[in-house]
């Protein structure tokens, strides 16, 4: 599971997709593609964006929901939290019996 998250985060385009989903939740594939090309000048194909989304979804970082005929993508930050918790532990209590 963690390997999938690291692999997903290793790619700059996928990090940009996560940035965009963090800024605006619930985007269609068309909207993600438009923002990548208009805002970030990333001229990548719809198929490539679709594949990036599949990697992010497999890692649990992106979730999709169907609403009627439409499919929307949202960011799920839970796997990131698990990564940070792996190395950062809460402080030990001052006094232990």
């Amino acid at each position, binding site marked *: 599971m963690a390997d999938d998250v690291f692999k997903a985060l290793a790619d700059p385009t996928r990090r940009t997709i996560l940035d965009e989903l963090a800024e605006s939740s619930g985007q269609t*594939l068309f909207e993600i593609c438009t*923002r990548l090309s208009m805002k970030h000048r990333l001229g990548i194909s719809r198929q490539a964006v679709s594949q990036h989304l599949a990697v992010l979804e497999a890692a649990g970082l992106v979730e999709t929901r169907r609403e009627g005929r*439409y499919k929307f993508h949202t960011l799920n930050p839970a796997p990131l939290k698990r990564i940070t918790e792996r190395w950062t532990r809460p402080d030990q209590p001052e006094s232990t019996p």
Partner: protein
Amino acid sequence: MRIRLLSVFVDDQEKALRFYTDVLGFVKKHDVPISGEDRWLTVVSPEDPDGAELLLEPAGHPAVAPYREALAKDGIPLAQFAVADVQAEFERLRGLGVAFTQEPLEMGGVTTAVLDDTCGNLIQIIQQP
């Protein structure tokens, strides 16, 4: 060469005519019976009545349903209409009960939004500087 006519497939021509005129604000240009209940039904912009026509074409052909379903799933609009103010138009249309898959969003100088035309298609509205 100029663009004369473009078509969108619609589930129900009468319902489509009402949406494209009463809600979006286009005006009917041609309405000619073709065969059975089908009509040659076109609308134009009141701002450009001699400009390009939009044909509201019956969606009965078997290729249409899978084509439109696949595009709708990914949120891909089938036409783009220019408006003076996307935010104002979004609020006006939402007030009329129109569903949007993308709310107004500024993207590098242009603002767009994407709405469901209730006839099976997504339509993008755009405001350019």
